[in-house]
C-alpha cells in the first residue's frame, strides 16, 4: 500500500516537533527516514501510527485519510526502538499476539508463529521467556511480532540502535533480505547514514521537523540538496562560497607523487582497501582525497592534484 504524509504538524509546549513534514512511500518500497537525534523522526513515525495527535496535516493510506482511525484499526505495524516485548508472554505469545487480536484460529496462529520464527532465524524458541533472550534475539522477536499480522505498512524506529557492531551489521543484512522478500511498504527510521543507505530504496533526510531532501542513496551522495545535508551525510570537502557551498567528492581528486606538486600529504588513514589522504595545497586549504591500492603517498610527500570537474558540485549553503 502507498503511504503518504502531508504537511504534518505537531507542537510540544510551543515548539514544533513536526513543522510540515511530508513523505510519500510507494507500495512495496523501503524508505529510510534519516536525521540527527531530536529532529522529529520518532514523532513523525508515531504520528503516522496514530500514537501522536496531529496539530495539522493528514496521513493517507492508498488515498484514504486515516484521521479518526484509532491505532489498532490502522493496519500499520511498528517495531519499537526498545522492542517493547511483553514480559509476561513467551516468544510464541509475543509473535502471535497480533493474530490473536485479529481473531485468527488457534491452529493457524501456531502455524504462522513457527513460520515467522523460521523467517527471523529463531526456530524452536517459541516456548522461551522473552526475558532470557539476548539483545539480538529480542530484536528478531520484535520483528516477527510486527510482521505477524501482515500489516500493509511497517514502521521501524531505530531497531538496531542498541546493538553492538558485529550483531548490528549482521541483522542489517537480514532486515534488508526480509524486506525484499515480503515486498512490504516500509518506513525505516535511523540516525545512521550507512544504515539508511544500506536499507533504503530511497532516503528522506529530516532536519528540525521538516524533510529536506528525498532521493536515492546515489542521488543524495552525488547531489545533496544543500551544505547541511552534505555535511550530515559525511561528505568531505564542503567549502563555503558566499551563499552556496562547493563540494568536491574525494574520489574525484586524482593524486600523484611529484616533487613539484602543489600539495602536501598531512595524514593518511587506511580503511580496508582504500586510503583517505588529508592534503594541504599551497593556498593553505585542506582537502580529502581517496586512493586505492598499496603504493600510496605517505605523510610529508608532495603530490600533484588533478580534479575531475564532474566530481564538483555547487549547492546552496542551507544554514
Amino acid at each position, binding site marked *: 500500500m502507498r503511504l503518504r504524509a502531508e504537511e504534518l504538524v505537531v507542537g510540544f509546549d510551543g515548539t514544533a516537533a513536526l513543522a510540515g513534514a511530508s513523505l510519500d512511500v510507494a507500495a512495496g518500497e523501503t524508505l529510510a527516514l534519516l536525521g540527527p537525534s531530536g529532529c522529529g523522526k520518532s514523532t513523525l513515525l508515531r504520528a503516522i*501510527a*496514530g*500514537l*501522536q*495527535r496531529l496539530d495539522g496535516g493528514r496521513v493517507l493510506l492508498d488515498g484514504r485519510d486515516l484521521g*479518526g*482511525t*484509532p*491505532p*489498532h*484499526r*490502522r493496519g*500499520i*505495524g*511498528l517495531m*519499537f526502538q*526498545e522492542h*517493547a516485548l*511483553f*514480559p*509476561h508472554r513467551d516468544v510464541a505469545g509475543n509473535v502471535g*499476539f*497480533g493474530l490473536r*487480536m*485479529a481473531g485468527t484460529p488457534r491452529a493457524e496462529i501456531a502455524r504462522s508463529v513457527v513460520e515467522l520464527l523460521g523467517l527471523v532465524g529463531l526456530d524452536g524458541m517459541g516456548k522461551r521467556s522473552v526475558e532470557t533472550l539476548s539483545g539480538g534475539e529480542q530484536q528478531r522477536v520484535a520483528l516477527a*511480532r*510486527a510482521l*505477524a*499480522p501482515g500489516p500493509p505498512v511497517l514502521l521501524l524506529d531505530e531497531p538496531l540502535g542498541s546493538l553492538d557492531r558485529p550483531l548490528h551489521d549482521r541483522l542489517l543484512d537480514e532486515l534488508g533480505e526480509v524486506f525484499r522478500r515480503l515486498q512490504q511498504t516500509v518506513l525505516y527510521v535511523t540516525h545512521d547514514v550507512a544504515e539508511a543507505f544500506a536499507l533504503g530504496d530511497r532516503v528522506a533526510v529530516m532536519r528540525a521537523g521538516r524533510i529536506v531532501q528525498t532521493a536515492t542513496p546515489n542521488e543524495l551522495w552525488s547531489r545533496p540538496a544543500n551544505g547541511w545535508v552534505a555535511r550530515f551525510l559525511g561528505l568531505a570537502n564542503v567549502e563555503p562560497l558566499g551563499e552556496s557551498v562547493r563540494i568536491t567528492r574525494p574520489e574525484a581528486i586524482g593524486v600523484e607523487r611529484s616533487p613539484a606538486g602543489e600539495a602536501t600529504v598531512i595524514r593518511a588513514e587506511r580503511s580496508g582497501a582504500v586510503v583517505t589522504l588529508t592534503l594541504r595545497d599551497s593556498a593553505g586549504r585542506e582537502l580529502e582525497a581517496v586512493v586505492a591500492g598499496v603504493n600510496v603517498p605517505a605523510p610529508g610527500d608532495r603530490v600533484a592534484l588533478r580534479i575531475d570537474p564532474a566530481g564538483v558540485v555547487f549547492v546552496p549553503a542551507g544554514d
Partner: protein
Amino acid sequence: MDVDRAPLGRLQLAAAAAIPIAFLAIFFVYPLATIVGRGLAESGSSTFATGETLRIAWFTTWQAALSTALTLAVGLPLAWVVGRFAFRGRSLVLALVLVPFVLPTLVVATAFVAVLPGRLDRSVPAILLAHAFFNVAVVVRVVGGYWAGLGRTTEAAATVLGAGPWRRLREVTLPQLAPALAAASALTFLFSFTSFGVVVVLGGPRIATLETEIYSQAARLFDLRTAAVLSLVQLGAVAAIVVVASRLEGRLLGGRSSETARRVLRRPRGRERWLVGSVLGSSAVLLGLPLAALIRRSLSTPTGIGLDHYRVLRRETSILLVTPLEAAANSLLFATLATGLALAVGGLLALALARLRPGWLDALVLLPLGGSAVMLGFGFVIAFDEPPLELRGSALLVPVAQALVAAPFVFRIVAPAIRSVRVELREAAALLGGSPLRVRREIDLPLVARALGGAAGFAFAIALGEFGATIFVAQADRPTLPVAIFRFLGRPGAENQGSAAALAVVLALLAAAAALVAERAGGRRSPL
C-alpha cells in the same frame, strides 16, 4: 487518538479514586479529626501534667534513636553480604530476613520474654533488642538492595588510586550509600517510635512511650481527655517523621537497578568467604535465638518436653472467655476480610495515583503505615461511639482497622508494579490490533496481577498480627490471636506464659507462611 498514557481514562480514574477516598475519609480522617477536635478542646482542662507528657515524648524519641542505631549495627553486616556477594541461598536469606518484619509484634515480644533472663525481660534494653530484631529486614533490604545497584567500579577506581580498605569505605562506599542509610534509618526510627506491642509487653507497667500511654490512659484509666491530648503530640511527631522518611525514601528511586545488580554480585573469595560465613552465621544465631527460645518455652512443661501448652488451644479459660482455637478462627476470618478491604482500598488508590510522580504522595500513604495503630483504634472508639456513625460493638470494626494498617503496604507493592507497565507495551499492543479494553485485559492486568497476589499475602500477614488497633475494637468474646496472647502474657505463672508462647508459635507460623507465599507470588515485590 493517542493511546492512553495511563491504564485508565479520566472518568474511570475519578471513579476508581472515589471508593478508597470515601473509605479513608470515613474510617481514617474522621476518627483522627475527632481525636484532634477532642484533644484541642481538652488541652486546657486535662489533669495530666505537661511535664509528664514531655518526659514520655523524650523517652519515646531516644529509645527510637537507640533502636535505630542498634538495628543498623545488626543489619549492616548482613546488608553488605547480600549487597556485594552472590552465593547459594542468597534469595533465601533475603526472604528469611523478612520473617521477623512480618512477625506479629506480640510474637516478637513473647519471644523476647522467653529468651531474656528474668530480670531483663521487662526493661529498656529488651525493647531496643526487640526493635532491632523486628527492623533488621528494613536495613538489609533497603541498604543491601541499594548497595547491589551501586556497582564496583568506583571502589575499584579508588583502589587503583591508592586508597586502602578503610579510606575506601569512608570516602567512597559510605557516601554513596548515604541515601539508603538515611532512608532505612528513618523508616526504622518511625517504626520504633510508634511501636506498641513490643513496648506494652516488654516495658512492663512502668516504661511508657506515647503510644502505650495513649492506650493506658484510654483503655485502662478511661481518661479519654488525656489520651486525646497525648494523641495530638503523637500525631504531630509522626507527621514530621513521615515527611522526613518519605523524602529520604524518595531520593532512592532510580538508584536501584536489578540489571546491574546481577553483574555486580560475585562469589566471595579468600578471606571474604570467612567474613561472609561468619556474618551469615552470627545473624542466623541473633535472629534465630529468640524464636528458638519461644518454641522451647512453648514445649517445656513441668515434666519435660511436651505438647501440654498446645492443649490450651481447645480449652476455654476465664482469661479468654472462648477457646484459643476460636480466637485463631476469628483471626483468620478478620484477616481475610481485612485483606479484601486492603486490596480494594490500596489497589484502587494505586491505580488512581499511578500516573502521578512518586514523592510527597507516598508520604501521605505512609501516614497510616507509621501513623500509630493505637491512635486509629482510639479514634474508632471515640468517633464511632455516637451518632452519626454509631458502630460501637460492631465486629466489622476489627477488619476495617486491620485493613487501614495493611492498605499502605498494598499500595507500596502495587503502585510500582502499575508504574512499571511501560507505555510502549500498551502502544505495541494497540498497533497489533488490540482495542483499548483489550489492551487493559491483555497487558495491564496480567502484569499487575502478580504484584496483587504478593500484596494480598503481606496484607494477610499484617492483618493477622495487627494488635494496636485491634485491642481497642475487638469485642471481649471475639478476641483475635494477638489479643489472646496479650491476655495470657498479662497473667503470672509459668502455665500462662507457656500458653502465650504456644499461641505465639501458631500465630508466627500463620503469618510467616502468608508472607513467604506472598514473596514468591509477588515476583520478589515486597513493601521494602
